[in-house]
C-alpha cells in the first residue's frame, strides 16, 4: 500500500470514530422521515438541497438513491469521485453531505441471501 492510501485510510478511520455519537443521535429520526422528492427520488430532509445540487451536477440522483453505505463508505465514494471522476473539493459542505447520506442511505443488512420480497403474485394459466 502506498503512503497516500495509508494516509487516506488513517483519515477515514478518524472520521468514523468521530461520527459514531452523531450517527446514534440521528438514527432515531429515520423512521419519521420518509418524504421523498418526486423529481430526484431523494429523501427530503436537512441538507437535501445541498446534496441535490452537488451530487446531481454530474450524475443522476439514482446513483445515490440505489446505493447504501456507512459514513466511511460514502466518504470513500467521494474520494474516488475526486480522484478519478473530476469531483471538486466539497469544502465545509462535505460534512453536511456525509451527514445526509449516512443518515438516509446507510447500510442495509442483507446477510448471504435475503428472502424474496415485493412479489407481484398472479395466476399462471395452464
Amino acid at each position, binding site marked *: 500500500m502506498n503512503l497516500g492510501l495509508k494516509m487516506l*485510510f488513517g483519515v477515514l478511520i478518524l472520521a468514523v470514530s468521530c461520527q459514531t455519537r452523531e450517527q446514534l443521535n440521528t438514527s432515531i429520526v429515520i423512521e419519521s422521515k420518509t418524504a421523498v422528492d418526486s*423529481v430526484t427520488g*431523494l429523501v427530503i430532509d436537512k441538507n437535501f438541497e445541498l446534496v441535490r*445540487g452537488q451530487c*446531481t*451536477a454530474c450524475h443522476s440522483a*439514482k446513483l445515490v438513491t440505489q446505493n447504501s453505505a456507512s459514513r466511511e463508505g460514502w466518504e470513500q465514494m467521494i474520494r474516488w469521485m475526486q480522484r478519478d*471522476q473530476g469531483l471538486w473539493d466539497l469544502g465545509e459542505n462535505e460534512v453536511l453531505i456525509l451527514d445526509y447520506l449516512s443518515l438516509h442511505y446507510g*447500510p442495509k443488512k442483507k446477510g448471504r441471501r435475503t428472502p*424474496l420480497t415485493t412479489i407481484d403474485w398472479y395466476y399462471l394459466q395452464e
Partner: protein
Amino acid sequence: MNRSFKKKSYWSRRKFIQTSSAVTISSLLAPTLLTGYHLRASGISQPGLPGKHPDMLVLNDRPWNTEAPAHLLDEEVTSMDRLFVRNNGLVPSEIDPEKWTLEISGESAVTTKTFTLAQLKSDFEHYTYQLVLECGGNGRSEFDPPAKGNQWTTGAVGAPKWTGVRLKDVLQRAGLKADAVYIGYYGKDTHLSGDPQKVPISRGVPIKKALEDESLIAWAANGKDLPLMHGYPLRLVFGGWPASTSGKWLSRIVIRNQVHDGAKMQGQSYRVPCKPVAPGSKVADEDMCIIESMPVKSIISYPRTGAIIKKNQILEFHGHAWAGDQSVTKVDSSVDFGNTWHPLELKLPSNPLAWQHWSGKMKFPYPGYHELWVRATDNLGDHQPMVVPGWNPRGYLNNACHRIAIRVE
C-alpha cells in the same frame, strides 16, 4: 482454440492478471466544473430509456444504466430493446458513419492502420455469432456490506447475435509484434464531468482472448445496425468476459506490450481481491486482480416470479445458462432449498460463448409458498453457489442461483 483455463484458484477457475498498482492521479478539473453556475437542473428521472422495452428497470439515467427483469430475457436470442445498458460516460452526440474510422495502433503494432467503416465491411470476411454479454457487476445488489455502484439484480446480461469482422483479422492487417500481450480500446463516448481530456472507459483483453474466432468488431446486432446505446456504429464484442471489455463507439484499438492501463483497468474497477477477504475488508489496489472469464450462471426466464398455480398443476419452466469461456454441462432445479436437485433438459449453444437453453416441468403436490431454484454446472465441474459468493469491494461476480417464488393453492 483451447479456451479452458487450467489454473484452479479460489475464485472458481477464473484467471487473473496482477498488474502494477499505479493509480491515476486525477487530472485538473475542467474550469467550468468549479463554478456553482454549472449545477444544471438535473438528476431528473425519465420514464424509460428510448428504444428500450418499457418494463426495463432504469438504475441510472445519467449515465444510462438499465437492466431487464428476468422474464423479459425469455427469448433465445435477446432483442436489443431488452439488452441491459451499462454506460460509463455520455453517448457521443455527433456520429457520421460515412466518416467513422477505426485506428489500429500501439507500441506493439507493426504499423498503424486506419479503416473506414466501409473498408471494414468490404475488406474482411463477415461473421455472426450469438455471444453473451454480462456486466461484471450483475448481481451486485446482493452483497453485504453493500458495494458501491449500480445495484444490478439479475438482468445485466443478454445474448444477441452480433455481426462484424474478426478482431484478429483486423489486428493482423496492422501486424502484431512478438511482445504484444494485450489490446485496449478507445471509444467516442465522453466523460461525465464534461472534461474532454478525460476518458470515461478504456479497457481491453489479453492477446489470447483478442485472437479468438468469436472476438468481433461488430456493426450489427440481430441483423440490424447497432442501436446508439449499444455502440453505433462500431463496437467490440468479447463473449463471456465482463461486458466492459466490449468497448462501444469504437474508434481506436491499441496493441500493447503491457497490460492495458486505460481508464477502469486499474485501481479497483473490474477487479476482485487476488486472495479471499472477509466481508467489508479494505483491499489495497495492488492486491486486486483483473476479472477475466465470467463464472457459471443461469436465470429462470419463465415463468415470471410470483406465479400462483393449482395443486398438481404441471409447471413448465425454462431459462438460459452460460459459463464465461466455458460451456454449461448440467442444469438442476430444486424446490426444497437444495435438499434435492433434479436434472433439467439442456441444449447445446448455437456457437461457442452463446448461452444455452434449459427447460423442465414439475408438479407441486403441496399447497403453500415454494421457491424454484436453478443451478448450472460448467464443463470444469464448477456450479453456482446458493449463497452470495466471496465478498469483494466492488461487488462483482455474484453468480448465486436464481430463484423465483411460486404459490400453490
